[in-house]
């Protein structure tokens, strides 16, 4: 335990900068009258660019600080950079929808403070408060279009499931606290290994915590909210939901891996077995659900459930092997997949948002013939969907390749086979959209049409470029990023 000193608070710079920036943003939003959304997005964007650099410059060898409540290591650094960059793109997507409203941006940024805290949480209390700091603004965001009954319904489902699952998670926390008398995460893991590993209370505690964190990442059986919330929320906010709170859930999962791994088999249920089971269920359910969808937004919601399942495959390896080269390989695979997922999923939702705003809907009929009247967005969407399906030479393929490589090296054949079968099934519904876009004639004629298609604003063009280029580039030139991630784990 170290006392609070100036040096310690200096490590808190990103969070402090974010909180300060947020206050400035609130005041500016009160003063300006016109273009509140554009101004909020611009200020928020500047803040986030600064945060990417502040986070990158952070010292990752600090270890625990603030009485052990927060830890700063490579993982903290990675997630801070990830959250700042992903929010930057999300804010850009939202700026086209919310030109006159500043509140959504303020809510997103206040949620990001929670994510930054979550990235470094090293204590049950920090973890809980950080998760709630991510969740509560998200409930409001889901219901932001309060005149729209679907948006209100999305918010209600989100808040009820969210509060319920945080109740489950807290009961799990209280059991682990009782078993060990500690609230620090590393101390709990040690304490559990030392004296309580294998007791039923230990199993119940871990299952409840998994349920709470699993809600954030839409893991079966805590996934019911996900398609409804994604469909009902404004599309640009769905784009944000599909990446950031989900990645925050994974950041939390990374922090509790040692606690999960401390579970010795109870009644034949082992930690690896649990993760393997939920991983297989999550991806299978996500992919089977996606096949029947007519709304592309809802289809992408199910696809995001499936992707959480793929990422959990990596966690199965991480939990099975607590240390060593293979453990690090799986870690790298999961983090790499998150980065790839960030670009391809935000990109896909951005095109859906574009089509919804210009043509008036998000069901698959609106995408028919998109390639004929709007080749550029259609081509971009095709790239994102092929990448989500995991076809070479796109980034999604390399991401899946790393995950499967880790599984095969750990000789977890059953999960690898289920994963590959799922990837094949997913190809079906992704390709269906691409077929409709390029081979069919349009059902709906765009209202506001130029020679070359939609008038893509500068911002939209830049954002398309920012998401398409990494999706293409990471598929052929992944070395530097993978290497950078590997170095963060040292």
């Amino acid at each position, binding site marked *: 335990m170290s006392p609070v000193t100036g040096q310690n608070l200096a490590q808190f710079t990103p969070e402090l900068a974010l909180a300060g920036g947020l206050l400035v943003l609130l005041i500016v939003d009160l003063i300006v009258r016109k273009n509140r959304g554009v101004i909020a997005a611009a200020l928020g964007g500047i803040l986030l660019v600064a945060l990417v650099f502040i986070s990158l410059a952070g010292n990752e060898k600090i270890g625990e600080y603030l009485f052990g409540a927060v830890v700063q290591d490579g993982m903290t650094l990675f997630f801070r950079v990830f959250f700042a960059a992903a929010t930057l793109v999300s804010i850009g997507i939202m700026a086209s929808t919310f030109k006159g409203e500043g509140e959504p941006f303020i809510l997103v940024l206040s949620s990001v403070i929670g994510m930054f805290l979550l990235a470094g949480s090293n204590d049950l209390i920090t973890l*809980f408060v950080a998760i709630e700091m991510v969740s509560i603004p998200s409930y409001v965001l889901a219901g932001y279009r309060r005149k729209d009954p679907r948006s209100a319904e999305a918010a*209600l489902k989100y808040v009820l499931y969210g509060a319920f699952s945080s109740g489950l998670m*807290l009961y799990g926390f*209280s059991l682990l606290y*009782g078993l060990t008398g500690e609230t620090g995460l590393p101390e709990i893991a040690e304490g559990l290994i030392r004296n309580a590993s294998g007791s039923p209370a230990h199993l119940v505690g871990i299952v409840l915590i998994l349920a709470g964190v699993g809600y954030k990442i839409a893991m079966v059986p805590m996934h019911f909210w996900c398609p409804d919330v994604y469909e009902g929320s404004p599309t640009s906010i769905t784009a944000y939901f599909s990446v950031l709170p989900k990645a925050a859930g994974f950041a939390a999962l990374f922090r509790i891996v040692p606690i999960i791994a401390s579970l010795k088999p109870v009644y034949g249920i082992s930690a690896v077995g649990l993760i393997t089971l939920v991983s297989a269920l999550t991806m299978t359910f996500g992919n089977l659900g996606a096949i029947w969808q007519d709304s592309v937004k809802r289809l992408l919601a199910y696809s995001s459930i499936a992707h959480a399942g793929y990422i959990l495959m990596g966690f199965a390896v991480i939990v099975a092997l607590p240390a060593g080269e293979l453990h690090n390989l799986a870690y790298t695979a999961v983090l790499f997949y998150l980065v790839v997922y960030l670009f391809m999923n935000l990109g896909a939702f951005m095109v859906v948002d574009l089509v919804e705003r210009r043509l008036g809907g998000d069901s698959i009929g609106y995408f028919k013939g998109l390639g004929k009247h709007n080749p550029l967005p259609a081509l971009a969407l095709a790239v994102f969907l092929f990448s989500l399906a995991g076809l070479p030479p796109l980034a999604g393929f390399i991401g899946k390749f790393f995950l499967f490589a880790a599984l095969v090296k750990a000789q977890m054949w059953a999960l690898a086979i289920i994963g590959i079968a799922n990837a094949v099934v997913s190809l079906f519904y992704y390709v269906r959209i691409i077929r409709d876009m390029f081979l069919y004639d349009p059902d709906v004629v765009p209202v506001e049409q130029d020679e070359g298609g939609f008038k893509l604003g500068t911002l939209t063009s830049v954002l398309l470029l920012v998401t398409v280029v990494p999706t293409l580039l990471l598929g052929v030139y992944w070395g530097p990023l993978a290497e950078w991630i590997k170095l963060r784990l040292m």
Partner: protein
Amino acid sequence: MNMAVDLGWYLALAALLFCIGVAGVLTRRNALIIFMSIELMLNAVNLTFIAFSRSLTNVDGQVFVFLVMAVAAAEVAVGLAIIVTIFRHKETVDIDKVNLMKW
């Protein structure tokens, strides 16, 4: 006379409260009652924390309880606002009638 109650009783009471809360969430159809049931779950959590904190003579559990209460209040504030919006649309808070989106 020794008035101390065994730790086990506190834990059993908390577990019972928690189960009542979970059952309420799963079976009740009124959004407000569901919220009350969730509060019951959180109170069960608080009771467990306090009981352990007392028996382990470790104050961390009590700090946790303060934060649980604070966060629960924030969650309820947002939740009730959302329920009000739903009520304005539907004139009801029955969650079976809030079903625009399915499967």
